[in-house]
């Protein structure tokens, strides 16, 4: 009889073990997706005909054709350009759909599907003339009607990259001319249009349902989706109707899902993939020095920062924030953590963004004595204890946290590091449930407003990147910058705004990390865009 009980006990034990395994797996999974689901906002592309190959193969040996395999840490789960923002989808959507404007590897706005564009003097009317001979991948011609349909759907859907300009009307003047009128001037509009989310799709989805369309998307981009597993790989084939004649040179492009970073690096070394999307700073030199591998780099639109919750009792005090900013050796931190693949930050805006004011902004300098004096002026002259929130699975941030902890200790601020899994991390700071955190801010397009609006607008849903920082002068300058036409006046506005931020430090810009991609040495013609996406049109695979 007792055997029965023994057996049922065993069943319970097995049941509990299964549970434990699941919980363990859950616990270990923290770092897995952090690179993949990282909040990269991505968009479109680059200048036609521009070659900025970053890798060192001999083009004579490289041939056209072939399949390029790109290892990525997260799967593509949707091609609906109006509803997506994260890098896993953005960098696949921009292979299929293209916008009227785009940007090149230097982050300059260039005409793309539009042959030319003009803006009226009052900044309210935008006119675009489409290129001749642009066709969708099903062979039909692209007309201004398609552009109207695409932009109107985006306005209707809204989505995570909603058009911020107050659009009055979108009209097709004729088959080739598109006219957009705004209710009020909004200078960032052109850069907004260069976003992948403003890509052109066929009118009425080319006659199929919305759902069907995004399963078999049809766009003007260099590649067409051949097969797609939303939890696995995507295979693209070249678009035979691509408007840049002869391109792309490769026949096929495969997005291979490799969730584990070290697995991705090993596959690159063994030549099982031609490039990998996610390359951590600490692994870059290993890939750079490898016999068959190289690192492709470009300046990014990302600023790594320490964010202060200004609703927090300690960090509401500007002196506390300034004290900590002066206690941290940003240059030392950058050198220690980024292996030469980043630039120490001065201004909030990375150097790849126009009006970044890195030359003029005076950031608080590293000076422990000054930091102590600053703290003495605060409401907490004898220091205090606080917590620093970071997402687990990012070793650079874990190390940065320790450096910040040590810096705080120097001036009497005890910092406890709290490292939690990405999903929980987001939950916490969205609820303002943090005192300070390390995170990055990034632009959606090469436009100063992109980062500044997200990080200073107290009326925006992000409430100054969840710091809840409010300063009427900053808000006024933000609105001014959005209306002022490009030029010196706009530059002065942003210089002033960025200086206020540097003085009041609602966040401490630490460094601008470079975009790093691991690439096989045999690859030539790869273009790295500052948003982290790649252009494959001119890629050739050598021996």
């Amino acid at each position, binding site marked *: 009889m*007792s*055997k*029965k009980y*023994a*057996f*049922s006990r*065993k*069943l*319970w034990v*097995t*049941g509990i*073990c*299964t*549970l434990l*395994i*699941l*919980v363990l*797996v*859950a616990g*270990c*999974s*923290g770092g*897995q*997706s952090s690179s993949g*689901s990282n*909040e990269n*906002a991505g968009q479109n592309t680059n200048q036609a005909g521009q070659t900025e190959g970053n890798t060192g193969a001999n083009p004579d040996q490289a041939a056209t054709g072939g399949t390029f395999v790109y290892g990525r840490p*997260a*799967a593509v*789960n949707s091609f609906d350009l109006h509803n997506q*923002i*994260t890098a896993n989808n953005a960098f696949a959507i921009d292979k299929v759909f293209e916008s009227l404007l785009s940007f090149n590897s230097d982050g300059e706005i260039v005409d793309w599907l539009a042959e030319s564009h003009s803006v009226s003097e009052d900044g309210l009317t935008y006119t675009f003339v489409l290129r001749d001979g642009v066709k969708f991948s099903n062979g039909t011609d692209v007309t201004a009607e398609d552009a109207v349909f695409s932009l109107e759907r985006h306005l209707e859907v*809204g*989505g*995570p*990259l*909603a058009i911020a300009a107050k659009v009055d009307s979108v009209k097709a003047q004729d088959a080739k001319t598109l006219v957009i009128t705004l209710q009020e001037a909004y200078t960032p509009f052109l850069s907004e249009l260069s976003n992948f989310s403003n890509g052109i799709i066929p009118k009425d989805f080319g006659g199929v349902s919305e759902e069907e369309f995004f399963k078999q998307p049809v766009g003007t981009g260099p590649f067409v989706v051949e097969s797609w597993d*939303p*939890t696995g790989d995507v295979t693209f084939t070249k678009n035979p109707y691509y408007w840049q004649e002869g391109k792309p040179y490769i026949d096929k492009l495969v997005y291979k*899902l*490799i*969730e*584990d970073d070290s*697995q*991705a690096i*090993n*596959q690159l*070394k*063994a030549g*099982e993939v031609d490039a990998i999307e996610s390359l951590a700073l600490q692994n870059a030199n290993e890939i750079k020095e490898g016999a068959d591998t190289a690192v492709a780099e470009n300046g990014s639109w990302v600023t790594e920062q320490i964010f202060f919750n200004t609703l927090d009792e300690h960090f509401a005090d500007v002196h506390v924030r300034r004290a900590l900013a002066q206690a941290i050796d940003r240059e030392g931190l950058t050198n220690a953590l980024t292996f030469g693949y980043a630039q120490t930050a001065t201004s909030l805006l990375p150097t790849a963004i126009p009006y970044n004011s890195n030359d003029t902004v005076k950031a608080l300098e590293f000076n422990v004595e000054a930091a102590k004096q600053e703290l003495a002026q605060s409401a907490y002259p004898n220091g205090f204890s606080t917590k620093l929130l970071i997402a687990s699975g990012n070793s650079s941030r874990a190390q940065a946290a320790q450096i910040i902890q040590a810096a705080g200790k120097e001036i009497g601020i005890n910092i406890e590091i709290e490292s*939690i*899994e*990405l*999903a*929980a991390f*987001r*939950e*916490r700071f969205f609820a303002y449930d943090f005192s300070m955190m390390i995170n990055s801010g990034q632009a*959606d397009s090469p436009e100063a407003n992109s980062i500044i609006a997200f990080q200073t607008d107290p009326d925006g*849903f992000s409430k100054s990147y969840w710091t809840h920082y409010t300063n009427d002068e900053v808000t006024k300058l933000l609105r001014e910058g959005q209306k002022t036409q490009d030029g010196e006046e706009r530059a002065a506005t942003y210089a002033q705004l960025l200086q206020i931020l540097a003085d009041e430090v609602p966040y401490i810009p630490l460094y601008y990390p470079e975009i790093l991609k691991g690439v096989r040495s045999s690859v030539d013609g790869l273009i790295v865009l500052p948003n982290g996406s790649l252009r494959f049109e001119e890629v050739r695979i050598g021996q």
Partner: protein
Amino acid sequence: MMNEGQVLNASGPKKRGSSYRWLFITAARSFIVIVCVMIAVFFLIRIVPGDPAKMILGEYATPEALESMHHALGLDLSLGEQFLRFLSNLFTQGDTGNSIVSGNSTRVLIAERAPVTLLLIAMSSVLAIVIALLLATLASTNKNKWPDHLIRIFPTVTMGMPVFWVGLLLILLFGVRLRWFPVGGAGEGWGMAYSLILPSITVAFSQMPTLVRSLRAQMLDVLESDFIVTLKAAQIPSRVILFKHVLRNAALPTLMLFGVNLSYLIGGTLVVEQVFGIKGIGSLLFSSISNRDFPVIQGIALYCAVAVVIISLLVEIVSWWLDPRTKGKS
């Protein structure tokens, strides 16, 4: 587990009398365990902080976008309503719902991923058993000589090696350096079995220490028992003794041990899949947990629980069939 030193030389059941009642009760208990696992998983993953909508939409998503996503996913309902919806889905469609991330049915997702994981489990089981049998035979027949010592050190050393680390070493040596095997992923058809060789060695490695250790002990017990001494005295060739009597007697406890270990083996497979970049159930579970893809996590938990419970049940039945004394014996 089995009693040490228990000797079996007869085969087949003798009495089945009230067995059906016993079978029914154990099956009912298995069912209860599965139900408990399901309830626990359902509530646990919802207690853990993290919002699927935020994982899908990213940090730059507006509250409106989050709200409509919550509604679309049914996450705006109360926990009780969500649980009822989950139950009705389970009973009407035999499914835990559609994936939040990909929109596909969980059942379909699991069915797509299952073959490679099952093959990996099968290959690593066979490998673990074959190697364990060889080593244990070698050790027990050479008791206290150098092969025995060597083989006894082996589990002690390997027990301390984390599975993912062993996997990484194998990848670096045989994948990156020698290029004998693919570094990761799983091919199609025969290529699948080929690319699963390194991963299954890795999983088998983690299973072997316990298997070798207990199998060696079992075989020594049998070797030293009276009837073997008698057989030896009767000058039966030692090979015959070994294969016909010793191994046969040691097989049963090993089988039971293996049955219990299988749940750990499944757990180990999930981790190894991640290390080798294999798109099986394990990597699906990992990404689902990171994305808080509730229906898929529940689905995998359900299938794993069912698999583990059924296997324990089968092991129990088979061992009882092999040796009826195990039933009703404490």
